[in-house]
């Protein structure tokens, strides 16, 4: 199954604003994407609460996983989003 592992780039971690931006992007993906930290249980990337519960800080490596048509493209896009500093964009 296609996977991508990426370090969280947002200065304050994958919390409220960066998490929301990521979750909204994951919800729009054509495939079901999961996210996990290390070997912990994968959770749905489109679930705000599940993503917050990861407690990922800046530099925490997270792994995205998806299967099906468009999975690779969706994972590339979401991994690129996670690597960015989403706190720095706008307010």
């Amino acid at each position, binding site marked *: 199954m296609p996977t991508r592992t990426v370090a969280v780039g947002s200065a304050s*971690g*994958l*919390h*409220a604003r960066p998490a929301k931006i990521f979750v909204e992007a994951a919800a729009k993906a054509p495939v079901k994407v999961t996210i996990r930290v290390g070997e912990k249980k994968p959770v749905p990337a489109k679930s705000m*609460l*599940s993503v917050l519960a990861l*407690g990922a800080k800046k530099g925490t490596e997270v792994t995205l996983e998806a299967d099906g048509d468009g999975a690779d493209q969706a994972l590339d896009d979401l991994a690129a989003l996670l690597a960015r500093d989403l706190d720095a964009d706008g*307010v």
Partner: protein
Amino acid sequence: MSELLDVRAIKLAEKAVDRDDAIRRTGEALVEIGAVEPGYVTTMLAREQSISTYVGEGVAIPHGTLGGKDLVNRDALSVLRFPDGVDWDGETVTVCVGIAARGDGHVELLAALAEVLLDEDQARELREATEPGTVIRLLGALKEEDSNS
């Protein structure tokens, strides 16, 4: 998490006319315990305009912008319950957890809160809490679990 949660900042029978009113009250609870300067409340409103802090299960987590961090005296939480519900851009919010954080310590705190909300029974208990002790038990218990992980 419990030492971040001052019992004076837990208010369980609040009323708000709208979302911004609820955010103001949630922020003022942080001001009242000296955790933030009054200006922090304005940055909480600005944050909400930028992106909704609704997280699901009837709970929103208003907090300031990065620029508001200088107005934080110490990390703290406030928990306000609005039994009548508050319209939050189409969602109904019953509980607002106000967050004051200087560093990234609140990521763990948010993770702990999210764990509570992912548990249906605990989420309902939080939404229906009428005693501050219930809130402290729900949110305070997580700290011990966290330190074990």
